[in-house]
């Protein structure tokens, strides 16, 4: 586990103490919160509010938004907690040189997250999904000069993006399968999807997206690493909101996809595994923030597990838990942040006795921890009761689910106790003298959020009817009645709660030995996800390097070999497809002069190849030129013959002039016979021979050349038809051609000029 840097907790200098953004962001959050709250009555009544503007109509994508029971809950959380986090950040990052950027990123995140949950269009959802990834990347790497922060940012980015890409594929398939990209339209008809041939790919792709975003096992490790971000970010993105995007998605597609065993098993198993593993790891942590991070993973695992069910109690449990967890976890994170800020450390072993100096914090920590541990009358209690009830209601594998729930809750009680007691009791262990709760901007958020835990617990009907019930109804696609009570009478859930408390306290007492035990256990594990990640990355780099070394060898002849081999291969392939059409070699028809010219060409080519000295090769090229010119001449092309001779002559002169600068016998020791090269060369040559034959044995369409022959004198007023083509019919070619020659010449001269300059120096 990479060590989380503690630098973000120290006080900053050099930056602005505040910024207009410091007012803007909370104001916007508050505005959004209030605006959304005003819609509550309508969603409570089961209404869906939509808003659409066209965006990319040609692809059926629109910038449409909607509000229903499910996303309103999330949106309220996002804007509400966003408000407190923004205020908290003003105090926490006061004086940070990059404060303005922080607010911008925070704003970007908040808007994206709201967009994500409110988007009615699948593609819009994806757009915001990726935007939250970007914001998260920038915020995790906020402390950008620390290597661990950069590593964590990259890890989170890559994992969530990989998932995001799967999600995109899944959403596109979903759009194709349902014929619409609009949630409202898609959800209006949820019957047939489980029969659709694309059901399984859609489901798997969406799950991959959701699981990676919500840090489900085996992608759970990025979230604790993401604690490299400043604490407000951890509180906001990595516990309260962004990581719940996956949960939101699962809830959103629940009515569409949840009817199969695949869904149930996938979510139940992954969720419970995540919960159990993270709970164990959480207990082990001595860094307060990491302990919180793992407990967040626990919560996410449990949420996933519950969403695997189709039962209304389980769903209600999940939704309530979303609400509860967001409040107490954000509060706890902020408290930890304050401790870190004030003492310079968040290591349990170095903390103690802060209760007197930081009374508000202690209060907040206690309240939140009690909620987390599930004590009445806190909202957490209701949440936990519901959880057990829900767990019992899950039909597939109640023992497993209940077991996972109880086990994780036991450990969570221990963790909560640790968080609420350890730093505040006992002797002071820190050097710093001036330790306090800090400014109100710091403690306002935790205070309100922790207090809400109590308030919600006391005013349950409001929550149940206003928030949870519409959300559950949305998820299940049918109206449901959800009722919260602090006292249900003595039943199985209550018994389970008691067991949880007892064992939880026991675990808290025995945390020293437990921690050591877990440590030993972990050491015996062959690997961890995080190490696997590193191994994966280095495998990737190794593959990349190996591939590059193999392909991009830096050797020109090898490049050319591959290119020619590719040419030969595809041509052979094309020939093989048409094997029955390969023309036979019918020799004949040539008279002796043509044979001679051809033989001269061929012999000169061979001589060029076999010549031991470049000068001999040049002589051979001269002979080749004569042979070519004669060929042209024999077949009625005097202009070509002349040009060939002139060009050949000038080139040979240039070559001889250049050779005066080059080693005279450069190829004295060249390997004349290279079987592999010879094989390839023969193959390419044969392919070209066959291609030429295949082309010229067919009848020719001469309309175009006939036109030139007919029009040259009457319309172009020239008797040399070739020249007329060059300067009139196809003058544009010729123009381009002289441009080429001009360019080639001055380019070559440039090479030489640079040389002269160099030697002049």
């Amino acid at each position, binding site marked *: 586990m990479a060590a989380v840097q503690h630098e973000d907790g120290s006080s900053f200098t050099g930056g602005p103490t505040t910024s207009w953004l410091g007012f803007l962001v909370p104001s916007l959050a508050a505005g959004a919160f209030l605006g959304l709250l005003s819609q509550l009555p309508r969603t409570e009544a089961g209404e869906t509010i939509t808003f659409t503007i066209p965006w990319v109509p040609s692809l059926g994508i629109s910038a449409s938004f909607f509000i229903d029971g499910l996303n309103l809950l999330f949106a309220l959380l996002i804007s509400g907690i966003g408000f407190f986090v923004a205020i908290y950040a003003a105090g926490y990052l006061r004086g940070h040189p990059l404060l303005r950027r922080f607010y911008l990123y925070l704003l970007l995140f908040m808007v994206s997250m709201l967009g994500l949950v409110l988007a009615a269009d699948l593609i819009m959802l994806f757009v915001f999904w990726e935007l939250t990834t970007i914001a998260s990347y920038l915020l995790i790497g906020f402390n950008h000069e620390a290597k661990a922060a950069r590593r964590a940012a990259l890890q989170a980015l890559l994992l969530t993006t990989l998932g995001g890409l799967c999600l995109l594929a899944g959403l596109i398939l979903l759009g194709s399968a349902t014929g619409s990209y609009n949630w409202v339209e898609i959800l209006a008809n949820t019957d047939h999807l489980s029969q659709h041939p694309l059901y399984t790919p859609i489901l798997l792709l969406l799950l991959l997206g959701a699981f990676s975003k919500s840090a489900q096992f085996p992608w759970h490790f990025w979230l604790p690493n993401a604690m490299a971000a400043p604490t407000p970010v951890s509180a906001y993105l990595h516990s309260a909101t962004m990581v719940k995007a996956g949960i939101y998605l699962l809830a959103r597609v629940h009515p569409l996809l949840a009817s199969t065993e695949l869904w149930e098993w996938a979510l139940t198993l992954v969720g419970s595994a995540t919960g159990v593993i993270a709970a164990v790891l959480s207990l082990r942590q001595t860094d307060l923030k990491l302990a919180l991070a793992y407990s967040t993973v626990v919560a996410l695992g449990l949420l996933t597990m519950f969403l695997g069910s189709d039962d209304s109690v389980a769903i209600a449990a999940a939704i309530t838990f979303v609400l509860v967890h967001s409040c107490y976890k954000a509060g706890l994170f902020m408290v930890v942040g304050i401790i870190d800020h004030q003492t310079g450390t968040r290591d349990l072993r170095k903390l103690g006795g802060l209760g007197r100096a930081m009374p508000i914090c202690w209060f907040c920590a206690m309240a939140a921890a009690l909620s987390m541990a599930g004590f009445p009358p806190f909202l957490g209690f209701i949440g936990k009761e519901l959880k057990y009830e829900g767990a019992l209601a899950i039909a597939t594998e109640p023992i497993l689910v209940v077991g996972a729930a109880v086990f994780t809750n036991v450990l969570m009680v221990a963790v909560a106790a640790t968080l609420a007691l350890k730093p505040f009791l006992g002797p002071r262990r820190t050097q710093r003298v001036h330790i306090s709760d800090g400014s109100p901007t710091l403690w306002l958020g935790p205070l309100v959020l922790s207090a809400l835990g109590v308030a919600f617990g006391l005013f349950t009907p409001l929550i149940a009817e206003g928030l949870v019930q519409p959300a559950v109804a949305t998820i299940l696609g049918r109206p449901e009645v959800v009722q919260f009570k602090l006292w249900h009478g003595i039943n199985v859930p209550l018994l389970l709660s008691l067991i949880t408390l007892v064992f939880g306290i026991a675990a808290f007492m025995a945390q020293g030995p437990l921690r050591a035990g877990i440590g030993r256990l972990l050491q015996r594990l062959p690997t961890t996800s995080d190490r696997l990640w590193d191994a994966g990355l280095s495998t990737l780099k190794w593959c990349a390097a190996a591939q590059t070394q193999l392909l991009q060898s830096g050797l020109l002849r090898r490049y050319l070999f591959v290119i020619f081999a590719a040419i030969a291969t595809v041509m052979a392939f094309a020939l093989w497809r048409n094997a029955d059409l390969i023309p036979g070699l019918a020799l004949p028809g040539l008279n002796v002069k043509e044979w001679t010219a051809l033989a001269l060409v061929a012999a000169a080519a061979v001589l060029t190849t076999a010549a031991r000295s470049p000068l001999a090769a040049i002589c051979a090229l001269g002979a080749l030129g004569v042979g070519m010119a004669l060929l042209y001449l024999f077949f009625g092309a*005097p*202009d070509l013959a*002349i*040009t060939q001779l*002139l*060009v050949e*002559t*000038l080139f040979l*002169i*240039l070559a001889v*002039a*250049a050779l*005066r*600068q080059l080693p005279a016998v450069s190829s004295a020791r060249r390997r004349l016979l290279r079987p592999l090269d010879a094989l390839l060369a023969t193959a390419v040559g044969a392919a070209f021979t066959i291609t030429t034959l295949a082309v010229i044995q067919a009848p020719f369409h001469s309309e175009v050349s006939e036109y030139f022959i007919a029009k040259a004198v009457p319309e*172009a*007023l*020239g*008797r*040399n038809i*070739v*020249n*007329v083509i*060059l*300067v*009139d019919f196809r*003058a*544009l070619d*010729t*123009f381009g051609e*002289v*441009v080429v*020659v*001009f360019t*080639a*010449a*001055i380019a*070559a*001269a440039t*090479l*030489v*000029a640079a*040389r*002269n300059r160099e030697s002049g120096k």
Partner: protein
Amino acid sequence: MNSVVLQTATRALVALLLMFSVYMLIRGHNQPGGGFIAGLIAAAAFTLFALAWGATAARSALRVQPGTLAALGVLLAGASAMVAGLAGEPLFTGQWLFLGGADGDKKVALSSVLVFDIGIYLAVLGAALVLIFALEEKS
């Protein structure tokens, strides 16, 4: 190359080659020849000069920088192409001006096509000389 024979013969040969190149240029529209061929022959003439007297001497015999000559050639070819555009016809359309009789091969024709060919002649000549001089001066 410091050879009496070569240097002396060159004087005559260069003149001959240049004359021949102009001949090939002018008759190119009706007989084998044309701007390329003529330009290459003219380039051969200066190449001979450069071989005999050195590239520097050849350069000064040419008087214009060969690169400039080439650029002007391309410009001339381009201009002849654009003449038609100014006359409202598509670019590169041949523009003809006949002097004397209108009878077949007897008339003297001035045309943008010939100008185009002259442009090519100059461009090819200039470009070839740029190359030759560059490599010759290096050696």
